[in-house]
């Protein structure tokens, strides 16, 4: 049995297509199990019951593309899925035809008709999951819940449990090259959460920082993990065969130019703020004051480091392209010499 045959056998065993893989079992919808869980309602006793959330590859892609298509406007949609112990599972998502979600609490009510129609139609083609949450986008200002979001989510958690809120930032996704997403659940009113330690820091623009600070203790975030089916895996692998061209030719400095400029403006505002605060504190030299201004300046420093690094990444891509496609040496010996350092640089 030669190499290729062995490889094919291994491949076939690994991708056993005849029977349903363990990986694909998550796509089965067990109506009885779901109804039992809905009856038991284990989340009522513990506000911190749900700790993890699993998002399917398709749902993620759909949400990211919908958020992106909104440009600088916030968009919103709903997600379908189910619950499994302390894990919420999101199988699919769909967009809602509403606008201005950041200014109204009842945006979801307006789309109620659309939602019921959609879920009805989905059940007819074999998608039996129920609505498990909502998602919306914060284009350019990070993943957190604003005051309006918190009130909307608290309302949802009263009437439509189990429910989760997801926030996506399409602009930061593109600028940093990683999907910028967060999943949250609010605590009921008056509940004092146990101190859960520092969460991952994210830069918030100056005009939103107050909204963030006031409400940031009223909700907690869930750990996000993703899953995909075996067919997805296969298709994604073969997709790469065509997609590598796009990766190489993407130019993030240009796509992110506007966002970077805005970040720099924001940074300068923050710097001026901390400058005035420092000036005041210098006269009195009180300890608590210094702590606050130190924090302000360190936060600005962290923000500026992040922006700088993104710019540098973009430039790295440009330099790589230039080296590959523009710097063609004329002579044969030169070609060999330049092949050596370039392969070393890439290694």
């Amino acid at each position: 049995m030669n190499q290729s045959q062995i490889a094919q056998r291994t491949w076939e065993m690994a991708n056993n297509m005849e029977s349903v893989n363990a990986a694909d079992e998550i796509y089965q919808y067990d109506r009885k199990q779901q109804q039992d869980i809905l009856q038991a309602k284990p989340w009522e006793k513990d506000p911190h019951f749900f700790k993890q959330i699993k998002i399917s590859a398709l749902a993620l892609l759909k949400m990211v593309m919908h958020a992106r298509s909104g440009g600088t406007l916030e968009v919103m949609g709903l997600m379908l899925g189910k619950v499994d112990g302390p894990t919420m599972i999101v199988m699919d998502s769909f967009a809602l035809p509403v606008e201005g979600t950041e200014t109204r609490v009842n945006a979801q009510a307006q789309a109620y008709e659309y939602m019921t129609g959609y879920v009805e139609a989905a059940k007819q083609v074999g998608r039996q999951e129920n609505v498990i949450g909502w998602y919306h986008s914060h284009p350019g200002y990070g993943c957190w819940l604003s005051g309006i979001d918190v009130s909307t989510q608290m309302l949802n958690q009263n009437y439509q449990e189990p429910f989760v809120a997801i926030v996506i930032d399409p602009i930061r996704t593109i600028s940093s090259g990683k999907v910028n997403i967060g999943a949250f659940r609010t605590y009921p009113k008056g509940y004092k959460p146990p101190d859960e330690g520092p969460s991952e820091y994210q830069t918030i623009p100056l005009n939103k920082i107050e909204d963030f600070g006031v409400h940031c203790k009223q909700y907690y975030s869930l750990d996000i993990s993703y899953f995909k089916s075996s067919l997805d895996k296969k298709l994604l692998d073969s997709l790469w065969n065509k997609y590598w061209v796009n990766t190489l030719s993407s130019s993030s400095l240009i796509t992110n130019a506007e966002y970077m400029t805005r970040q720099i403006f924001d940074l300068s505002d923050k710097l001026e703020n901390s400058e005035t605060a420092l000036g005041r504190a210098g006269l009195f030299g009180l300890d608590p004051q210094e702590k606050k201004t130190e924090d302000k300046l360190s936060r600005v420093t962290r923000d500026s480091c992040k922006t700088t690094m993104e710019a540098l990444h973009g430039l790295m891509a440009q330099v790589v392209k230039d080296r590959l496609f523009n710097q063609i040496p004329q002579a044969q010996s030169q070609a060999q010499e330049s092949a050596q350092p370039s392969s070393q640089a890439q290694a």
Partner: protein
Amino acid sequence: MSAKDMASMEVDEDVAAEATSSSQSLAVESTSQAASGIINVVAPTSPLPQPAQSSASSSSLSGLCVVVAGGSNSEVVSGDGGTVMASAGTVGSVSVSLHPLVILNISEHWTRQRAQEGKPVQVLGALIGKQTGRHIEIMNSFELSYDELGGHIIINRDYYTVKEEQYKQVFSDMDLLGWYTTGDTPGPPDLLIHKQVCDLLDSPVFLKLNPMARHTDLPVSIFESVLDLVNGAPTMLLVELQYTLATEEAERIGVDHVARMSSHDTQESSLVAENLQAQYSAIKMLASRVRLIAEYVRASQRGEVEFNHEILRQVNALTHRLPVLSSDKFRGEFYNQCNDVALMSYLGTITKCCNTMNRFINRFNLLHERLAMGRRMRGLFF
């Protein structure tokens, strides 16, 4: 003064650099695609030993075009009687670009049905997107409900109307473009369904995804229908269309993230390494393609492969395209861009320095004050 002025200068710079730099990316993209295009032609005609096709997905030379893996269109024969494909050489009338989201949609639909039924089932759905002139962009898809009457599949029209209303509310600028299904090569049952879709739309496209495909390239084929005279009777035949994968920056990042997440065990602590990983994989692919072309040319030279003038002409054209952009204007703008980024990192470093200095001075003052206080106290008492 500093940051705001710098920012506005940067905006001007960017606007100027955008023209040249975006043309660079376009040039890069077209060169890479030309390299891929040559591989298409090389593969069916060259008897070169397929390099490490079993395991290394990156070096698969057939991983580029649907045509390569399928051989040629005219070989397709349906199960029960007669071909449904038009003769090879018929060129499609539209150009198609496909979003990866559609592929994932279909895959999920199929997986879901299989998980619920326990065995693989054929699924059916509609494709929506935008059409401008002779270019079709397939952007999204949704499932269709159908009934089986006498072994034939009949599409449920009412369901489709309901869904049409819904998607028009959310994606107002997208129209119905065609339909999709899963399975192997197309046959007469597909033509029957295609005729039904023709009632809804003038000339729909038909997408077929093969979930059981064994080869490593994308098992997605797109067809359109033509009316041809076969044995004197006008029959509908299918013509295969070439398609490209549409890109959108957010989609690419999403697809990338989803594709690589399973191998996410090692947490990369270096942000630079993470960022360069994607570039590195893409460059690896490019290098393997180039190596293949070089091998072919050398083999031609040695006489191992028959001399194909067309391919060699294309290779020649490709090499003449390099360097892609090297005018003085481009150089100027490129260095401007480098300077802008250098300026930004300079500002960032200065900010970091200021912060460190501030903290140092605060602590120094604190210490100094304590010491001074101590001395004063001693001065009082002694």
